[in-house]
């Protein structure tokens, strides 16, 4: 079972987990990314490349399903304007045992950060906005899964 969704509507970890709960496995792992209340930030704005971003996420989900023999995998990413405190991304994996579910979930968020065509802008309380710069530490975390 694989579900990849990009949506401008609010997303929910609880709803993302539901389709994974009755697949017969013993473990579900999830990661939820939330728009963080950094100094002065009131909202994020997420842009994507329609078509390519879906391909990027499907390729990562397929790789995770095969590499960890997952029973299910859900990747939901929100786009558009997202207020501080709201969910930006939810990743959830179901497997027979916890190690596969946890590792696959970490792989998916680490590689999503470097491989999926999304761009993030921070809107500040003074009305200005800044594009977020890519971080070298994200490359390092993603690189450790390439073996």
């Amino acid at each position: 079972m694989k579900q990849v969704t990009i949506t401008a509507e609010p997303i929910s970890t609880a709803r993302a987990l539901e389709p994974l709960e009755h697949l017969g496995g013993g473990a579900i792992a999830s990661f939820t990314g939330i728009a963080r209340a950094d100094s002065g930030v009131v909202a994020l704005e997420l842009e994507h490349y329609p078509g390519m971003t879906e391909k990027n996420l499907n390729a990562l989900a397929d790789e995770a399903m095969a590499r960890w023999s997952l029973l299910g995998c859900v990747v939901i990413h929100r786009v558009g304007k997202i207020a501080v405190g709201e969910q930006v991304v939810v990743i959830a994996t179901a497997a027979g045992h916890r190690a596969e579910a946890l590792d696959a979930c970490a792989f998916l968020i680490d590689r999503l950060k470097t491989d999926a065509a999304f761009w993030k802008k921070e809107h500040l309380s003074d009305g200005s906005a800044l594009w977020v710069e890519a971080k070298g530490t994200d490359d390092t975390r993603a690189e450790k899964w390439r073996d």
Partner: protein
Amino acid sequence: MRFVYFARVREAVGVDSEERDLPAEVHTVQGCIAWLESCDPRYAVAFAEPARLRFALDQQMVAADAALAGHDELAIFPPVTGG
């Protein structure tokens, strides 16, 4: 060739996409960048830091020296920052 731009690059160029006929001597992504920069100063601003540009041909990530032959769409954007 159809050009598409995202994020900071899109804002600097001023449009999210455009169709342009390439000169016969332009064969690579890097060649496109140099040619666009020669067309209008806003491209020189958008592409000012080559280390912070990424490219996709028909929605597949490619390097700057990739050949354009057989492709319809070149996307130019900064390193991705999702999640």
